[in-house]
């Protein structure tokens, strides 16, 4: 790998990193605005226009609070908890394809941190690691409520990972590729997976709510039962990191949903737009502008799903813990296996019939 390629990759990863952080930061603002709208009040409106500086004010407040470690806590693991939560949350954005390619002086730059032929497995592995931050932090606090929260989080994540993995299998059977870039490219021309996998999509989005610990599955931090759950003992920026990691996870899972089921950067009529732009502005500028439009479409889809997370949070009450486990193990896993069988039968028998009929 020569130096320019290395620098370009570094720059891409840095841009992806900054974008993830900025979007997560403004998700906290958007969450309050959405909550305000749904509950018929204003939401934050003092810091900056429409409260737009509120995230910065919050970050400042978090930084300048007293950084407190309980006397009987395990000091190193108490610090490692939020760090691990942030680390695992940020890792996943590396393989998400944010757009097609940029052309600069004949060089093609892919708008993706790392193009890997195991992309979706990488995301799945990082998601599986996400529970360590919560578990380590909850245990190190040396508090019964924190430990219960951590154990709830761990069992919930393990349970819903199974159904999530099984719903992904159906997508992989259709795309016959594990690379996220390849999966997006195959959905070109309104071949979005949501039309072929509606059941898989429902399972996947339910599981991603559970994996992000969002309402209606936010039992690990259920304040009516567990004070604050796994972050009861945390304050200052360490608490901030835990909450921030949740918003990063929300953005990542929204982006993954839009990549897997809603065509990523594909939109209806993109070929026409592409030919018009390249015709008018030349193959370089036109191509870049078409890519930018695709990236904007991608972010639009991802932001819609962040809004969906918030919408659900302020609409639906919390589940009971046994209901959560029953839903995960007794309903979603059998449904996901059923979905795999249906997909397999359709790929084997229905697809040849339809392609023969269309030709």
């Amino acid at each position, binding site marked *: 790998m020569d130096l320019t390629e290395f620098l370009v990759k570094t720059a891409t990863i840095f841009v992806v990193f900054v974008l993830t952080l900025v979007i997560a930061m403004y998700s906290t603002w958007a969450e309050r605005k959405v909550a305000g709208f749904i509950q018929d009040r204003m939401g934050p409106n003092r810091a900056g226009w429409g409260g737009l500086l509120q995230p910065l004010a919050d970050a400042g407040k978090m930084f300048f609070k007293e950084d407190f470690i309980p006397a009987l806590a395990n000091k190193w693991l108490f610090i490692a908890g939020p760090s691990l939560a942030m680390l695992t949350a940020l890792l996943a954005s590396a393989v998400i394809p944010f757009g097609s390619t940029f052309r600069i002086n004949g060089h093609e730059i892919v708008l993706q941190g790392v193009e890997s*032929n195991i992309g979706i497995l990488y995301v799945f592995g990082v998601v599986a690691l996400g529970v360590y931050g919560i578990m380590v932090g909850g245990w190190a606090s040396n508090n019964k409520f924190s*430990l219960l929260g951590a*154990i709830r989080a761990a069992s919930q994540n393990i349970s819903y990972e199974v159904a999530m993995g099984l719903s992904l299998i159906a997508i992989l059977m259709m795309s016959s590729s594990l690379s996220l870039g390849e999966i997006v490219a195959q959905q070109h021309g309104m071949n979005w997976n949501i039309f072929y996998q509606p059941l898989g999509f429902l399972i996947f989005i339910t599981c991603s709510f559970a994996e992000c610990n969002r309402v209606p599955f936010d039992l690990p931090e259920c304040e009516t039962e567990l004070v604050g759950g796994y972050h009861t003992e945390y304050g200052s920026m360490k608490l901030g990191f835990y909450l921030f990691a949740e918003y990063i996870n929300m953005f990542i899972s929204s982006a993954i949903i839009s990549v897997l089921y809603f065509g990523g950067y594909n939109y209806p009529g993109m070929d026409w737009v592409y030919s018009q732009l390249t015709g008018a502005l030349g193959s370089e500028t036109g191509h870049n502008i078409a890519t930018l439009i695709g990236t904007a479409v991608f972010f639009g889809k991802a932001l819609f799903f962040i809004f969906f997370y918030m919408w659900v949070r302020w609409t639906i009450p919390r589940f009971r813990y046994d209901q959560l486990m029953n839903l995960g193990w007794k309903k979603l896993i059998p449904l996901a296996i059923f979905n795999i069988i249906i997909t397999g039968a359709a790929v084997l028998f229905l697809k040849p019939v339809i392609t023969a009929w269309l030709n």
Partner: protein
Amino acid sequence: MNSTVSFFYFLSFLTILSAVMVVVSRNPIHSVLYLILAFFTLSGHYILLNAQFLAAVNIIVYAGAIMVLFLFVIMFLNMKQDNEEAKTNIAKIAATIVGGTVFVILFGAYRKSAIPAFNPENFDSQVGMIENLGHILFREYLLPFELASILLLVAMVGAVMLGKREIGERHF
């Protein structure tokens, strides 16, 4: 020294260090966390060998699922550093003999084993990629693969049977 070799030595150092720390740590939670680190460094070795699928599966299965359960059980047991029961001398001697024997067996096996040579001219570096792995697994090794999956299925059914609630028994 080229970069792959230095990566290899760095990863090997980390692997051995974390493996030793698993044994040496007094606190069982620390042991589990060092074991997770050891799995990560092993995945790094797999990536150096261009076996990306194996690396990802190692992380998902071992670090992501099995070690979470380990951590889970240890947290429930709530082991404290001070209530570790004193080991008798007989137990220490027996442990030393068993450990030494295992070491001798491993060393002997290592000395006797011949590592198959490969020809750099016709070596296929893509052999660890998921497509090739799938072809090999489902064409040449189909029967062992299916047998392994049946074994896993039997284990799963057994686990469900053990966890099943008896009639009239209520947990909450």
